[in-house]
Every structure is written in C-alpha cells, then in structure tokens.
C-alpha cells in the first residue's frame, strides 16, 4: 500500500509574537536573571529567543516571593476565591489555545495536531478541574480541615511542557500552596507565556513564579531550605538524586519518573485496533512519553500477522515539519536526546535484534529519528530494559498469560501498561497482576484531569490528577 500524497498544510506562526529575550517571572513581573541561554526550534535549529538563566540567588528571590504570597495572600484566601482565579486561568488557556499550541510545537518539535488537540486542551481542562476542588477540599477525603503545605518547588520535563506545568501548578494552587516552577531547559517558552496568562488573570504576585534554567537551577529549587514540597517529573536518574537530597528534611516529595511499559497483545485481540494502539503507544509525541508502550509483548500465535499489519501502518506515518497539520511524527527535542536514541538503537542492532524502519525521508536540518521497531528482542537486551524515550519499539513474544505478566513486570519501572483482548475477564485478571500505576485496556495513552497518574517501583511515587492528585499538596 502506498501512502497518500498530501500538499503541505503548515499552521501559521504569525499568531505567536516571540520576544527577542525573556526574563524570569518573579513576584508577578518579568525580571533579569544572572545569565541567559538560547532556546531553539528542534525542527530547524533556529534560535527562537534568549531566555534568562536563574542563579541560586534568583531562585532564592523567587522562593521569598512565593513565601510572602503564601503567608499574606494565597494561604489565607477563601477557597472559593482561589477557585475563581484558577477558573480564569483555565478560560484564558482555552482562549489563547492556538497561540499556545503553535508556540509549544515550535519550541518542542511535537506535531501541531498533538499540541492543538491534546496538550493545550488537557492543560485547560486540568486547571478547570482543580479550580473546582479549591472550595471543596474538606470533601476530598484527606481530613475535615485540610491545610496547604506552603511553597512548592516544581521541576518539569520537556516532553509536555505546558501540560506538565498544568499538572504541577493547578493542584498546588487549588490546595492553597504557592509555587516556584522550573521548566525544562529546552522548552521554556510556553511556561513564560503562561506567566503572561497569570498576569491577565490578575493572579496575586508571587503565587506563581517561573525560573528558567538548566539542572543547576533545578537543584537550587529542590534544595532551597524554605521549600516545603518538591514535585519532579523527569528521569529516574535525577529522581534518585532528588530523593537523596531531600532525605532528612521536612519536604514532602512526589516523583514521576521513567517507564518501560509493556503493551500486551493477546491472540484474541482485535488486531487492527491493537495496531492503532501500539502506534499511539510508542510514536505519539515521538515516543518522548514516560508512559510510552515501548515494549510490545505479543502472543506468539498472532505475532507474524500483527507485525505485518504494524509495518504496513508505520509506512503511512508522516514524519516532518511539526507545524504541518498532516504530520504524525515531529522532531526529536534536542541533539542530546537524539544522540541517546541513536546510541541505544545501535546497541540494539549490536546485541542481535533485528531493526526495521519504513522508508522515510528526514529533513536535513533539525533533529530527526525515523519510527523504528526491533524484533527478536530478548529480555536481556538493553533496548528491552532501558528507557529510550524515542520512537523505538522493542518487540517480544509470549505463549501464556503467565509468561506475559512475568515479562511485563520484569523491569525496575512500573508506570503504565497496555492489555489488548476482547475478553473482559482476562483484561481485568491481567490488570490485577501488573505492577504499574496506569493500565490501559484496548486503548493507550489516554489522559484526563479526573484520572490519577503515577508509577510503581522506580517510576516514582505519588499521583497526579484526580482527587488523588490533591494529596501531594495537602498537609497530613
């Protein structure tokens, strides 16, 4: 089957008004930082803007502003007034959704159809959902008079910049905390646009502070002695460093870390539907998803048929300009990440797995990696054990349900899993045995503000989303 030819359909960039440089957002205003760095579009390597880099002293100013706002304004404010600020923010995100989507795609490299249809609407919905909790905290099941913690220091990754910001800020503010948030080094721009949204919403100064920078800035946020709560989403490696750093302090911590999710396809699954779910599971957002279905476990009797369908489907994926509305797979977020994906893929070949990608023309500039699958993968292979965080699927087979469960759980991670079967009782029995925080059955990569998300084992602790997501931001 040949793929359809499509004329280019690029989304216009004109809606985004990029400034040449951006400051830190501290106490309700943009201020200069100690240093600065350039932020680029990973699809073209074009420099988009110069962004301030926060030093330890800048982070200290931000924490002080957050503390003042917590003590004087936000902490004492009745929940129903806090709620109305959060509803305002939700509405403004929706009103400026197109601008946010284009900016997210520019800075991150993800396809516009994903930033437009997933990241931004979910971010708005997340604020809308937690806005409603602000005046209902005694009903959340965490005591009759739940109290906020104080100042939350939050560090987020580059794979869903605005959405991860929403996951962090919305519940923190709803519960009555103030925040100092550090966006990822490679994707600061939507967080800075969000700062402008806070201004439009007339959020009191200091309630939200955004400090841009790299790992050192993040460490300054996490290690600041006046931070009461640390929330981090990112790699397991950094998660361990944070867990060690906060040991012995009074800081409450939640960590959303890596994953190596098994996507289990039984022989009674609807194969075409499963193929769509496998593609969504690993190629959504270029596989830059901690809960990506990066290990396909397929029952041996249907493996050949399924792989044939999967390859046919992969050949139709359009890789290229993230701003093109027809693009399915965008740019890899950074040169560093591309190097890591390439290195692991080479190790996969060297260890004896069979590599396959559809014929696929990649743009010359920018960071690109073709959708790739490895077959003949064994559990000992590094590509079956390590998180690649790219569009690379490792395929393993199994014969019995018991073997599927054993292989699925044979990982230090435990963030998510997928089960494909037309038999409900089987799905539920398998789900019971999977050591993972989210199990998708006959679907994959579904997210909703009402639904808690988070991992078992070395995928971190704590949950974000839903009623459960409040617990991380309440005393008790």
């Amino acid at each position: 089957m040949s793929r359809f030819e499509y004329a280019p359909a690029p989304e216009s960039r004109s809606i985004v008004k990029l400034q040449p440089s951006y400051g830190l957002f501290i106490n309700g205003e943009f201020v200069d930082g100690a240093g600065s760095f350039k932020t680029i579009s990973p699809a073209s390597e074009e420099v988009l803007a110069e962004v301030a880099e926060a030093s330890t002293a800048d982070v200290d100013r931000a924490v002080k502003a957050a503390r003042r706002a917590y003590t004087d304004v936000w902490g004492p404010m009745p929940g129903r007034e806090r709620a109305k600020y959060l509803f305002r923010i939700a509405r403004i995100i929706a009103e400026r959704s197109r601008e946010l989507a284009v900016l997210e795609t520019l800075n991150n490299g993800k396809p516009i159809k994903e930033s437009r249809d997933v990241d931004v609407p979910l971010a708005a919905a997340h604020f809308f959902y937690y806005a409603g909790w602000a005046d209902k905290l005694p009903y959340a099941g965490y005591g009759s008079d739940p109290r906020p913690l104080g100042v939350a220091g939050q560090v987020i990754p580059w794979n869903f910049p605005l959405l991860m910001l929403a996951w962090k800020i919305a519940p923190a503010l709803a519960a009555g905390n103030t925040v100092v948030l550090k966006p990822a080094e490679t994707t600061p721009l939507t967080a800075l646009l969000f700062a402008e949204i806070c201004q439009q919403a007339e959020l009191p100064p200091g309630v939200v502070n955004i400090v841009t920078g790299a790992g050192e800035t993040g460490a300054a946020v996490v290690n600041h002695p006046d931070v009461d709560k640390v929330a981090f989403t990112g790699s397991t490696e950094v998660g361990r460093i944070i867990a060690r750093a906060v040991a012995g302090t009074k800081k409450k911590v939640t960590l959303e870390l890596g994953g190596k999710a098994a996507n289990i396809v039984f022989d009674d699954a609807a194969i075409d539907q499963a193929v769509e779910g496998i593609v969504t599971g690993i190629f959504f957002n270029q596989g830059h998803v901690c809960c990506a279905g990066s290990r396909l476990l397929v029952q041996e009797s249907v493996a050949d048929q399924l792989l044939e369908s999967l390859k046919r489907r992969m050949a139709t994926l359009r890789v290229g300009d993230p701003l093109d509305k027809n693009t399915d797979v965008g740019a890899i977020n950074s040169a560093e990440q591309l190097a890591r994906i390439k290195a692991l893929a080479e190790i996969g070949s060297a260890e004896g797995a069979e590599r396959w990608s559809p014929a696929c023309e990649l743009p010359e500039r920018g960071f690109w990696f073709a959708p790739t699958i490895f077959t003949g993968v064994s559990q000992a292979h590094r590509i079956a054990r390590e998180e690649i965080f790219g569009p690379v699927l490792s395929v393993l087979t199994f014969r019995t349900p018991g073997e599927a469960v054993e292989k699925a759980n044979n990982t230090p991670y435990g963030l998510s899993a997928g089960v494909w079967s037309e038999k409900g009782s089987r799905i539920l029995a398998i789900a019971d045995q999977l050591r993972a925080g989210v199990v998708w059955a006959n679907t994959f990569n579904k997210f909703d503000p009402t639904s808690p998300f988070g991992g078992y084992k070395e995928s971190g602790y704590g949950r974000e989303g839903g009623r459960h997501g409040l617990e991380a931001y309440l005393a008790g």
Partner: protein
Amino acid sequence: MPAKKKESADSVASATRVTAGGVAVAPRLAVRKTYKLFIGGAFPRSESGRTYVVADSKGQFVANAAQASRKDARDAVLAARAAFGKWSGATAYNKGQVIYRIAEMLEARRDEFAALEVPASEVDEAIDRLVWYAGWTDKLAQVVGGANPVAGPYFNISSPEPSGVVAVVAPSEPTLLGLVSVIAPAIATGNTVIVITDAPRVAITLAEVLATSDVPGGVVNILTGSAAEVAPWLASHSDVNGLDLTGLADAKLALELEQAAAETLKRVRRPAPAPDWSADPGLAPMTAYLETKTVWHPKGL
C-alpha cells in the same frame, strides 16, 4: 441607589425630549418586557391565556406575568424528559463548563437583578454558588462512588447517575439565590428540572441568563404562578422522578404533595425547617436525585 432611578425602566419616558431646533417632541416610550414561561428553551405564554399582576415594592404595576396551568406543567415535563437523555449523557466536564458559563452570564447581567431589587450580596452569592456546582460535576462520582472490594474475583464499581426529571417548588425568598440553590444541584448531577416559582420577574430574568449560557433547551423549565395550583399535577405525574419541596413554606401543601408523590415513589426532599440559603449547601441537594449504579464483571484468564 437614588430613589428616582429605582422606579422603573419606564421613567425615561417622563423626560420631555427637545430637538436641536428647540421643538418639543413626544417623549420616548420604553419597551417593556413580557414575562412569559420558560419551557424547552423557548418563552411561551401560558397555554391557558391567564396572567397575574406583578407589582414592585411600592405597589406599582410592572407586569402581567404568565400564570402557568396544568397543561403548561405537562408540556414542561415533556420538554424536561426530552432533554434528559442528552444532558445526562453529556460528559461531566461539559456539564461543568455549561454551569460555569451560567455564572459568567449572571455576573454580566447583575445590573438586571439590581433593577429587580435583588441585593448585590445575594447576586454575589448566587454566582459563587453556580461556580461551586460547576466544580462538582466531575468530582461527585469520586466522592460518592468508587470501587468495592467484594470477596471474590470480581471487578465491582459504583457510580452515581441522575434520577431523571425533578419538579421543584422554589423558595419565595431569597428570590435569586433560592432559585439558583435549587436548580444548580439538580442539573449539575445530570437531572432536568421543572421549577415552580412565585417570583416571575427574577425567575424569567434568570431564564434569560440560562438561555444564553449554552444550557440545552428543556434542561431547566420555569413555570410562574401558583404552587398550590400547579405542583399537585407534577407531584402525581408519572414521568417525574423527583420532587424538591425544600423551598415550600406551606406545610399542609407540602404534606399533600409528598403523599401524591408516594404513588410513583418519587425521591422527595421535604421542606427545610429554617432554611439558611447562604450556608454551605453540602452534598444533600445533589445526592437527593442520584441513583447508585453498581457494575460487576468477573476477573479470570
């Protein structure tokens, strides 16, 4: 507010207008609003052709309000039932957005309620109450529902679902906050309502807020007139599932209505003894018109 302004919108007519050339012309006459019913998203007159005189606080005539009849009540039940499927099936997120939109529209029209002598503090409270219920649509199931750890290999989960069509006798006072406090919890949980009220101007102005808030037609229906005349038909109507009497001060009528409702086993909220409409409403106004559905499914390879 200066007393002169308060009289009515007609007062602009009393000023004699003079053209630039100094010639006196007839004063401009204000266009009055006709207060009709609100059924199925439309504003029909009463099928009975009846009206009753509404006066302002000084006893001045302000309107002939529609006086709802038994037929109007039955039409309202049809409209509420027709709207129920789609409204109860709308996502919780969507229902929350719509109810929040009512709050936005009410905030925008607060002057209209001020003109109807609703105190500003009551308008504030009514808006905030809508915001409170907007936030409940996608949370109530997480508070009153949940997984049940049955002693066997079964997936077992309980979720709330709306009862259906709810007939409500609105409190006479406070007019706006009373109406919002009985309408919002019922629709937040996915029910559709028929409200009987004796505050036609506030109720129909609120209906205009609802009509411009993306609330689907038929989700809220408002009958102005006499509860004593209309409510018995709703209390005994076999296609009505719930009856809210919390706002009814007439104890004898309340008893008759509850007895009539017994025939079809409606879910009834009795009159509140000393209702404080500005207090935290709690969950009872929502859970009164909810059913709990429990789903079992075996687990096994």
